């Protein structure tokens, strides 16, 4: 024993122990690593064993959740890139979202990896109750980014994700396009992410919004063009599996009409529950006062004509003042040009984005002011804090916060000033 101890001591502490044993250390470490490298099966789930989940649709059912996972299937025979990848929609059910997702593995043999999941779609049923009943899992899980897009839909999320579209091979990627940064910048939609939605839910106002994604049929002409093209998407509801679960298959997909997605409407949430909806025009107004838009289009009637303005830049500012009475001041500065008019103009005025007639500018300002006020009143009635007044109260008028936080939304006055400046 003593000898052994002294040998061990010499091994670690002897004169030039490291130098003497360097080769031994090296061999031991390399042998160990080679063993790991070649055996390579320590609960590893490699790329071939993974289901790369691109989007998830969540529907609430009586006994839990129905989850539609849109999985990218790399196909050696298809063309390169995302577009050539097939997608499969796997529908699983469980009492919790986690349980339902685990069943993907049971049904397909693939382990679902959510690292590339960039879209969560909440079905109508899921939004009737607190949506965080189903979003909790995605906030907890460190392996899914909370930067993924979050959207709501009318009807079932499963159906939305199974929609065939000529825009992209995968429904999820097509939806992502209508929720892109560009769509946000031009005011075509109001995208939101899980992080931002959760932050507003846990904030003081507890108000949040989600874009409402819809699948709309193509026009007959478009359908004629798109219908002929073969889509590699296989998202559809097919055969019934165990416990009423369904998995995507190839059959029947050709018979489904192709559709395009839009997200121009917005759903409003308070305390995690859907409380209302903004129309396309209202959503645009909300985008106008919320974001700095670029190259957005706004159409308004003026006299006998209809004008379409290109909003080059919008600079919104919302201020809250709490004196005797609380007052929200919304100032919106727009720089716009004429994109088109319904009646032909004289030659000089037809130059690229010709001069804005001054009365038209005033009319636009007036109409926008009215519309914004109407939108605010609508949201106030729903209990939705459109201008983050409570948040502003907490940040900038904190001394009044405790007194006013519960009544502010009902009491606050609104002043809207819209200044539209013409630009050539």
């Amino acid at each position: 024993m003593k000898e052994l101890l002294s040998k061990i001591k010499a091994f670690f502490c002897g004169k030039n122990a490291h130098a003497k044993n360097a080769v031994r250390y090296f061999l031991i470490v390399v042998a160990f690593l080679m063993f790991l490298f070649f055996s390579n099966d320590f609960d590893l789930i490699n790329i071939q064993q993974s289901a790369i989940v691109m989007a998830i649709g969540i529907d609430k059912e009586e006994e839990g959740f129905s989850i539609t996972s849109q999985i990218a299937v790399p196909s050696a025979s298809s063309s390169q890139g995302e577009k050539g990848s097939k997608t499969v929609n796997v529908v699983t059910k469980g009492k919790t979202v986690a349980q339902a997702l685990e069943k993907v593995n049971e049904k397909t043999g693939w382990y679902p990896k959510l690292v590339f999941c960039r879209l969560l779609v909440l079905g109508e049923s899921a939004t009737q109750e607190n949506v965080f009943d189903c979003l909790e899992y995605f906030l907890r899980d460190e392996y899914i980014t909370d930067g993924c897009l979050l959207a709501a839909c009318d009807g079932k999320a499963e159906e939305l994700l199974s929609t065939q579209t000529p825009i992209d091979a995968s429904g999820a990627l097509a939806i992502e396009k209508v929720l892109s940064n560009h769509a946000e910048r031009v005011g075509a939609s109001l995208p939101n992410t899980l992080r931002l939605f959760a932050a507003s839910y846990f904030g003081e106002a507890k108000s949040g919004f989600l874009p409402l994604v819809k699948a709309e049929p193509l026009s007959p002409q478009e359908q004629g063009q798109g219908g002929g093209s073969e889509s590699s998407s296989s998202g559809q509801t097919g055969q019934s599996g165990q416990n009423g679960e369904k998995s995507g298959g190839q059959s029947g997909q050709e018979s489904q009409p192709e559709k395009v997605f839009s997200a121009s409407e917005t759903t409003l949430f308070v305390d995690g529950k859907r409380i209302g909806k903004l129309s396309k025009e209202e959503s645009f107004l909300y985008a106008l006062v919320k974001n700095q838009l670029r190259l957005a289009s706004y159409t308004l009637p003026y006299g006998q004509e209809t004008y379409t303005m290109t909003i080059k830049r919008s600079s919104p500012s919302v201020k809250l003042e709490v004196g005797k009475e609380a007052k929200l001041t919304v100032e919106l500065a727009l720089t716009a040009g004429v994109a088109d008019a319904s009646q032909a103009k004289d030659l000089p005025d037809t130059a690229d984005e010709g001069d804005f007639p001054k009365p038209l500018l005033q009319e636009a300002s007036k109409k926008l002011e009215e519309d914004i006020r109407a939108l605010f009143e609508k949201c106030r009635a729903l209990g939705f804090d459109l201008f983050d007044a409570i948040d502003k109260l907490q940040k900038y008028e904190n001394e009044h916060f405790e007194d006013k936080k519960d009544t502010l939304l009902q009491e606050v006055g609104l002043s809207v000033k819209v200044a539209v400046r013409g630009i050539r």
Partner: protein
Amino acid sequence: MIKDYKLPAVNTRQLCFLIAFLFPIARFLEAPRLLASAAKGDLLIPALLSLLLQGASIAAFLFLSYKTDKTLFQLIENALGKWVAKAVYFLLTAYYLFAAVLPLLDLEKFSYAAFFDTAPTTFSFAPFFLLSAFLCTKNFKAVGRSADLCLFLFLLPFAGILLMSIGSGDFSSLLPVFSEPFKSSLKAVAVTKPHFADGALLLPLLGSYKYEKGAAKKAGVAFAVSVLFTLLFLAFFYSVYTTLSPREHYAFAKIAQYFPALAVVGRIDLILVYLLSIVYLFYACLPLQLAVDCFCKAVNLEKKGLYSAVLHIGLFVFVLFFNSRYDAVYALYSQYLYPLFFLFADLLPLLFPLLLIKKKTKAGTK
């Protein structure tokens, strides 16, 4: 062989880099979450308080190194005798081991989240102990040079991460300042004390670091930089996560992920995170290096290899046992054991200069 040119193991530049580029990393992982959960938007206030305390420890260290060239062991030995010096070194060994636990557990959990797609086995973390055991056999010269490396490994990724996350942040979420009661800030100071206890990490460097002219000024600047980095990071973190901050683990691995271009090019922010992880690895190993050094000095052992190996086998067993009790260990540290960090990281460095006074009195009586 070539003469060592009588250069100190750690020079002023390296000391400054330790303070400016190595120590802040301790506050980038779990501290932001803990600060936000206790102080919410006021998280910068407790951070600043903790940093000021740390600044006092650093000042005490500089004062000691200005006054004496002796090592801490020699200093205690001269003032209080050899056995007291040994006892203090045993205590310091215990403290460094104790202080190493949280960074170790944090690192383990962080590695599972940032380096894997699916939760791996605990054995995936085991190779860390090989690295740590190796580092523990090295002397303070290597520690100093690792600080030099941290300049590159820290600055570039740190700047990159902040730049990538700036667009996702809402800095107004930090308002209003002092919205939370001061008690919350004090609570946050206590809860995050293990993450702001770097003052004690400098003590064993005494004697290896020789005070140079102007060092206090340079260290002051380095400390200011360290404070700036910490506060800047915390501000970015809270602006990105706002109300979600109290539940966001592994702060530095996450805040850059919302950069829009990443959807096109992949998570290249992870490359920056991995580079910062190397700095965190060095940081997590530092208390262990100091523990090994203090122990070897206390028992007069020249070769550190055996002790380092035994220690790391023990640590591995510890991690195996405690990784499922992560929250319990955290609660234990932040609710009950944090006074120990105040004692060793803040109070002790301030007490050591008294040894110099005592020595003077002794000399006077002679």
